[in-house]
């Protein structure tokens, strides 16, 4: 699965995207897995309410299922316009 990070999430984790092989069933489980990995992930995901997630390029909730998903992206609230 391709996992992408944008804005300060990308900066804290230190890379824009990575391929991850996971058994996580939901976005939340994927986050728990990443947080357990290294401090920089823990720092990025410290306050989940400050984050948004997109699953296959559509905004989703953290309890969204990951079955069949090819791309998950984490980022702060958007500031377009």
């Amino acid at each position, binding site marked *: 699965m391709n996992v*992408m990070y*944008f*804005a*300060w999430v*990308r900066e804290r984790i230190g890379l824009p995207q990575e391929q991850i092989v996971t058994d996580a069933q939901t976005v939340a489980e994927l986050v728990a897995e990443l947080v357990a990995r290294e401090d920089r992930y823990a720092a990025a995901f410290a306050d989940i309410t400050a984050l948004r997630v*997109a699953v296959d*390029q*559509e*905004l989703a909730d953290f309890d969204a299922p990951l079955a069949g998903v090819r791309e998950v*992206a984490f*980022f*702060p*609230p*958007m*500031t*377009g*316009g």
Partner: protein
Amino acid sequence: MQVRVQQDAFDAGAELAGFASTRTDIGAVVSFTGIVRDTRGDLQHMLIEHYPGMTERAIADIAKQAATRWALADVLVIHRFGALTPGAPIMMVATAAQHRAEAFAAADFLMDYLKSRAPFWKKEVTLSGADWVAAKDADEAALKRW
């Protein structure tokens, strides 16, 4: 309907001149141009990051919603990414409709949704450092108007 996501600058005047220009069945065109604003006089540039692929989809979806809600003859959305200098246009929307109220409402709606639902993030780079622009609660709340 035209959606463009680009690094290059654009000319809002030329875009407006070409927008819906051959139609004789519309009475109203509204445009909005967002510009890099140097509030404190110390902005070096504004870095705009986006999510290629999702950006185009999200904007097209927002434009389609607008075209469903109001009888629009045409819609244009342009949004830039990359490093932009103060005074440079960031983005523009234009709407064309038979009546004024529709064109205004649709442009306002597009801006509210682009603000909070299009995957862009802004970072202000000044002489004293760089900061990500935080989303405002009011921007999210504005979506409830529609």
